[in-house]
C-alpha cells in the first residue's frame, strides 16, 4: 500500500461508524447459527436491531441472489427462508414497502418460482416483481472500470438496500457473496464485467453501498458454482453473517468457506479503495455460534 492510498484508507475508514460501534459496544458483524429466522433475529438484535438501519416509512430493496432455475436444496440461490425473515424484520422495523427482485440469469419466471423466493417473500409481505427491460437507466457509476452503466431504476429510487446474498462457489470469482450479488441490479451486457471482475465489483460496491448485508450460509454450494445442479456440492452450514461493512461480510464469508479473503479478488480490491475492512482482526465480530474465527 502506498502512502497515498493509505491516507485515503485512513480518511475513508474514518467515515465508517467505528466510533458508534465502539461507543455502544456493538459489533460490526455478527455470525449466528440455527434455524434461519431465529438466527437472523438474534443476529440483528446483537447489531442493535433492524431499527438502526431501517427508518419508519422507508422503501427497502431486499436483494436476494435469485439467479438460477434451481430449487433451494441446490443452494444456487439465497435460501427463501432467509429472504422471508429479512423482509419480515424490515417490515417490523416500520418499512413502508419492501421490494424484492433480481435480474436473473435464467428465465425469471422459472427462477422466481423454483427458487422458492417469490412465494416466501410475498408471504412475508414483500412486493416481488420481474425486472422490466425498459426500466434500466444509464447512469454515472464513476468507478475505475465502470464509468457509466445501465442500472435498474427501482434500485436507484429505494431508500435503503439490504443485500441478501448466498455464499457459494463461483468458477471465476472463486466465491460469490455480497459484492457479486450487486450485479443483479444492473443491465446491459453485464457479462463483460467478467473481463475485469474484481475492479468492476468494487465499483458496484462503491456505487450501491447497501445499508446492511445478510450473507446466507445456511446451505453452501462448495463447487460447480455459481449455478450448481448437484447435491454433492451442497454443504449444510446453517449459518448467517450480518453486518454493515460489505467488505467485512464478504471477507468473513471467505473465511467460513475456508479461503483467505485475499483470494477472492473483489475483497482486496474493495478494501484497497477503502470500501470496508477485509482484515477480520480489525472488525468487531460477535459470534452467536459458539465458535472463534
Amino acid at each position, binding site marked *: 500500500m502506498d502512502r497515498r492510498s493509505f491516507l485515503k484508507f485512513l480518511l475513508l475508514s474514518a467515515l465508517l461508524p467505528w466510533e458508534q460501534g465502539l461507543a455502544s459496544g456493538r459489533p460490526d458483524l455478527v455470525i449466528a447459527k440455527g434455524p434461519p429466522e431465529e438466527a437472523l433475529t438474534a443476529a440483528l438484535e446483537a447489531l442493535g436491531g433492524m431499527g438502526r438501519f431501517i427508518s419508519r416509512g422507508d422503501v427497502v430493496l431486499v436483494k436476494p441472489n435469485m439467479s438460477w*432455475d434451481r430449487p433451494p436444496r441446490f443452494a444456487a440461490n439465497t435460501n427463501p427462508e432467509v429472504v422471508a425473515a429479512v423482509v419480515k424484520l424490515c417490515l417490523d422495523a416500520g418499512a413502508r414497502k419492501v421490494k424484492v427482485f433480481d435480474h436473473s440469469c435464467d428465465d425469471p419466471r422459472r427462477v422466481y418460482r423454483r427458487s422458492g423466493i417469490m412465494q416466501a417473500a410475498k408471504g412475508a409481505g414483500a412486493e416481488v416483481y420481474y425486472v422490466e427491460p*425498459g426500466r434500466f437507466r444509464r447512469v454515472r457509476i464513476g468507478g475505475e472500470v465502470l464509468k457509466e452503466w445501465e442500472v435498474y431504476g427501482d434500485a436507484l429510487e429505494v431508500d435503503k438496500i439490504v443485500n441478501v446474498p448466498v455464499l457459494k462457489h463461483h468458477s471465476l470469482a472463486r466465491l460469490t457473496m455480497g459484492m457479486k450479488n450487486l450485479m443483479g441490479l444492473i443491465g446491459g*451486457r453485464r457479462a463483460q464485467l*467478467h473481463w475485469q471482475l474484481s475492479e468492476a465489483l468494487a465499483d458496484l460496491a462503491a456505487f450501491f453501498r447497501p445499508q446492511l448485508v445478510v450473507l446466507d450460509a445456511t446451505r453452501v454450494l462448495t463447487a460447480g458454482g455459481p*449455478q450448481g445442479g448437484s447435491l454433492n456440492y451442497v454443504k449444510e452450514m446453517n449459518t448467517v453473517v450480518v453486518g454493515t461493512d460489505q467488505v467485512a461480510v464478504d471477507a468473513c464469508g471467505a473465511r467460513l468457506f475456508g479461503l483467505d479473503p485475499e483470494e477472492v479478488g473483489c475483497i482486496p480490491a474493495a478494501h484497497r479503495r477503502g470500501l470496508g475492512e477485509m482484515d477480520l482482526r480489525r472488525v468487531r465480530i460477535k459470534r452467536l455460534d459458539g465458535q472463534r474465527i
Partner: protein
Amino acid sequence: MGKGFNWFRWRPFIQGAFLLLFFLLFLQTTYRGRDVIPYPVNLFLRFDPLILLTTLLSTHRLPVVLLPALSVVGLTLLLGRVFCGWICPLGTLNHLLSRLNRRPRTGPGGFRWKYYILFGLLASSLFTVQVVGYLDPLSLLIRSLTLAAEPLWNLAAHSAFSSLYEHGFKVLEPLYAFLRAHLLALRQPLYHQAFAVGVIFAAVLLLNLLRPRFWCTHLCPLGALLGLVAFLSPLSRRVSPEDCDLCGLCQRLCPSGAADSREGLWRKAECFLCGRCQVLCPSRAVAFGFSLGKGEAVEGMDLGRRRVLLSLAAGAVLAPLLRLSSLPTRGREGLIRPPGALPEAEFLRRCVRCGECMKVCLTGGFQPALLEAGLEGIWTPVFDFDLGYCQYYCTLCGQVCPTGAIQELTQAEKAKVKIGLAHIDRSRCIPYSQGVDCIVCEEHCPTPEKAIKFVLGEVVTPKGPRRVKLPVVDLRLCIGCGICQFKCPLEDKPAIVVTPLGETRGGAFLLPT
C-alpha cells in the same frame, strides 16, 4: 327443424364464445409457473380434419392425437359447414371484418379455387410433402397471432407504459401490472419472419373488403374439405315459392354466396349455416331442414374434371420439385430443431407451421425458418441461439405440438437429448485471443456436470504470455442447449456457437474420444 328453428339467433353468441375460447387458449400457450401446461392449448388444431387428413396421408400413419377432428367431420356430415359459420376463429374474424364491407355480394366467383387448393394439398401430402400449414386456417391464424400480432401488441403496450414511466407518470402502473400478469409476454417477442407473416395475415383480413369472407369462400382448403363433406349431408334449405317475393335480400345478405334468390337456388357446399337468410327474410319464406333426397334447389358441384386433375398433378409435382432444388450434401449448420423433434424427413411430414412451439418457447429462441431447412421447411421452428436458448428444465414445445412433430419429453428424457453441440471460436473467444478470464459460457452451462469446463493454459498476448482459464467443450456432456452462445458477452458474432452436429435425432454420430 322447420320454421321453428330459431337456433340461428344464438349463432353470434356461439361464435363469440369459440373466439373467446380460442384467445384464452392462445394466452395460456406460455409458461405460467407450471412445468406442464394444464390446458389443452392446441385444442382447435386437434379438431382440424384437414390436418388429420393430410397428416394421415403424409405419414401413412393414423395420428391418434388428431382423432377429435373426426367429430367435426361428423358434425359437418349432419349439419353442413357449421364449423365455418359458428366455430372457426378465423372465420369469425373474417365475419366481423366483412361487416365493414357495405358493397353487396356479387355472383359466385372463384369459389372453386379452394377446391383446387385442397386437391393440390392432398396430392402433395400423399407424396409426403406436408405444406398444409401455410393455408390451413387454424395454423395460419395461430402462426400470424404468434409471429406478428402478439409482438405488435406487446411492442405497443411496453413502449406506451415505458414512456409513461420514464416521464414519472405512474398512475397507470396497476393497469400495467395487470396486463403484464395476464395479457402481455414477459419479454418483447421478436421473430425474423414477423413482417412477411404479418403482411399475409393483413391481406387475408383485408380481402374481406373485396368480398365478404373472401378467404373462407375462395381460398380456405379446410372450408373446401368441409364443403365436400357438407354436400353429402341431409341438410336442406327450402324457399317457399308462395311466400318468396324475389326481393333478393337473401342473396345480398349471404356472406358465403350460397344463397341465390333465383328459384331459391342453394349452393350447399358453400353455405356456412349462418341462418341470416332464414332469420332476416321479410316474408319468412326460407326454412332450413333435413331431407334425404338431394333436394331440387341444390346446385350441383361442377369443378371440372380437367381442373381437378390439374390441381392434383400440381400437388404431386410439388414434392420432387421442392426437394430437387434443395438436396443437401452436408447437414445444415443453422438447422437446430426443438428437443424431441423427429428425424428431419419425418419432422417435415408432420409439422404444420402452426407456431405453437414458437409461442410457448420460454426464451423466444424458436424462430420460423426461412431457408435453414430448405424450401420445404419454410416457417418450421428452428433455434436461433442469438435470440434465445433451450432452457434446461423446459419441456413446453413437445406439450403443445399438435401433430407430434415434436415429441413430448419428460425433464429427465430431455436432459439426455442433444439438439446440437457447442464449438468455440478460438480466434474470437476472449481467454484464447486476449488472455483475459471470462468463463461466462462455463458459468451458464446447465448440465450438472458441466459440459463446458475450463483448463488453465498459457496464451500469448500483446502483453506477453498469460495464464488464463480456457473454456473447453466436453462433447459427451454437451446437449446443444445454446445458452453459452446466447450469453456470450461478445456483442456481435458469438465466440461459441452451437450447430446441429451430433444431434440425437440424427442417429449415430461417433464422438471423437
